[in-house]
């Protein structure tokens, strides 16, 4: 066994996307990661069982709390992101709510970007009411707004690397400094960038959340989410007794004192996941692991195709705006700094001609799938004004950054020429009343 310690070597991203979290299963030698489709695990003896439940030993107890297939995904994702670990959840929304639930208590305050995924905005408002936590939304591009929103009760700053759907790019390093000065963590939703395009922890973010459903899985097969922790935040700085003090939910264990940098993740798993129960299924984890193996290959093609389509759209007279972050002068410097490999593959463009033009356009395409998801190998299209935001009038749409003729695209990994051909059919359909 002693021949394992070799000189240290730093493995590249492509290698780790395939190998991190995937040491061969020792009892069978299975090379693929087995799907451990089991609810529970047989203990070796009563002493081992006690040690697992006391968190004195790393072991499996029950698949609501941990599962070896899911653990492989957690290790791989945290490795790619430069974190110390991760906890996976049944969905991105479950991951995000659990991450917040673990560190917020009634009377706390939270500051969030106003340019977030609509489902996140709804969730934050809901959590705010149910947890009695004050919530302030700020323009994520305005650094002074972040600072001004802070109160003595503020416990977390929250934003997306690439805003959905407006394409705001977060100045992660600057907002992380604001959080650090306030002694609170910065939590970033990095779903649209993935660790291949941007690793927020390297820029000072403390907690990173994902909808694994999107580019990480990459094939639109499964719903899942994850929380990655940098392990760098000092939960014992006086602002977080909920993490640092003896926990009544775990026989008075002090998670930060006992587990150091791993304390938040231990609490997230051993208390929040245990009690709220939004566990990822092992089968979904297996599909996500398959997806992660090709993440860097797919992302290069996603961003290349997206930029080609965006540039083509930008040259058309019947398109009033293309909201691709790399084509927005406001964000060019931030894209160059945080997203040098590409600014993602989800963006909007605005058709002249309003709601009817948008609906006609959707009718005209046949390769783009008309649905409410993003980050699939397949290209996706949606007209927010007639679907996800159809209850809003034009004024309310404008406030949400969406025009009546806005189309959102999630560009897949097909041939770019075919995508452009398909969009041409959409333009040809406008005004035909078919």
């Amino acid at each position, binding site marked *: *066994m*002693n021949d*394992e*310690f*070799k*000189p*240290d070597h730093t*493995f590249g991203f492509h*290698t*780790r996307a395939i*190998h*991190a*979290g995937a*040491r*061969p299963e*020792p009892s069978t*030698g299975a090379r693929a990661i087995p799907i451990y489709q089991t609810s529970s695990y047989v203990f070796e003896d009563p002493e081992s069982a006690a*040690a697992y439940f*006391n*968190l*004195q*030993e*790393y*072991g*499996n107890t029950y698949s609501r709390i*941990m599962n*070896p297939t*899911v*653990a*492989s*995904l*957690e*290790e791989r994702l*945290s*490795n790619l992101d430069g*974190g*110390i*670990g*991760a*906890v*996976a959840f049944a969905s991105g929304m479950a991951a995000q709510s659990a991450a917040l639930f673990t560190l917020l208590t009634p009377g706390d305050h939270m500051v969030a970007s106003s340019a977030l995924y609509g489902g996140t905005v709804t969730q934050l408002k809901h959590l705010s009411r149910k947890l009695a936590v004050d919530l302030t939304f700020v323009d994520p591009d305005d650094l002074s707004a972040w600072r001004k929103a802070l109160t003595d009760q503020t416990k977390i700053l929250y934003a997306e690397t690439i805003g959905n759907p407006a394409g705001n790019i977060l100045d992660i390093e600057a907002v992380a400094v604001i959080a650090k000065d306030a002694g609170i963590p910065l939590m970033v939703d990095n779903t649209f960038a993935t660790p291949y395009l941007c690793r927020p922890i390297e820029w000072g973010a403390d907690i990173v959340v994902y909808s694994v459903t999107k580019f990480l899985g990459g094939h639109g097969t499964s719903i899942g989410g994850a929380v990655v922790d940098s392990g760098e935040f000092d939960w014992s700085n006086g602002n977080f007794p909920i993490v640092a003090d*003896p926990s009544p939910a775990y*026989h*008075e*264990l*002090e998670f930060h*004192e*006992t*587990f*150091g*940098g*791993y304390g938040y*993740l*231990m609490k997230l*798993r051993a208390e929040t996941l245990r009690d709220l129960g939004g566990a990822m299924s092992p089968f979904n984890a297996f599909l996500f692991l398959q997806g992660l193996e090709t993440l860097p290959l797919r992302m290069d093609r996603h961003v290349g195709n997206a930029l080609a389509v965006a540039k083509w759209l930008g040259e058309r007279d019947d398109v009033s705006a293309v909201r691709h972050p790399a084509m927005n002068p406001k964000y060019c410097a931030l894209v160059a700094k945080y997203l040098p490999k590409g600014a993602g593959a989800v963006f909007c463009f605005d058709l002249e001609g309003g709601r009817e033009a948008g609906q006609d356009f959707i009718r005209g395409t046949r390769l783009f799938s008309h649905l409410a998801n993003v980050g699939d190998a397949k290209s996706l299209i949606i007209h927010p004004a007639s679907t996800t935001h159809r209850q809003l009038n034009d004024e309310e749409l404008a406030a949400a950054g969406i025009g009546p003729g806005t189309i959102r695209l999630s560009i897949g990994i097909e041939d770019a020429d075919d995508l452009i051909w398909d969009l041409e059919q959409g333009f040809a359909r406008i005004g035909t009343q078919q």
Partner: protein
Amino acid sequence: MTDTTQYQDPEIIQRLLHSSRTVAIVGLSSNHLRASNFVGFYAARHGYKVIPVNPREEEVLGNKSYPSLSAVPEPVDVVDVFRAPAAVPGIAEEAVAVGAKALWLQFGVISFEGADIAVNGGLDVVMDRCFKIEHARYIGRMHVLGFNTDVVSARREVY
């Protein structure tokens, strides 16, 4: 030098984990909620002989506690320290005197003065690292809880 990473060499850490048998834990507490107790329990569970060194304790984890490293009546491989950094230089001198092979300083126990004393005495030094976590990373099962071991290997482990 004020860089702890020079004392976090994965090769040295793995060699110590594999070659050591006796671990004296300085500051080992009998309170089973303290980090030192977690580490001592874990080390004993994984076959190391754990020797408590703590003048405030009679017995910890079933083993007699000694008031100081010098009072330990048998050879020690690793001296694992859960004490304030200011106490480390004195402990390092004792570690050299008793012929220990390594001085291991836990999370937050950062003392370059202590490290220099140990290195000059011929000891390996590990600093700002947890004995339990490093064992769990390379030999144990840290990965079952979704932690990033940073280990990449296509070899099949044989138990």
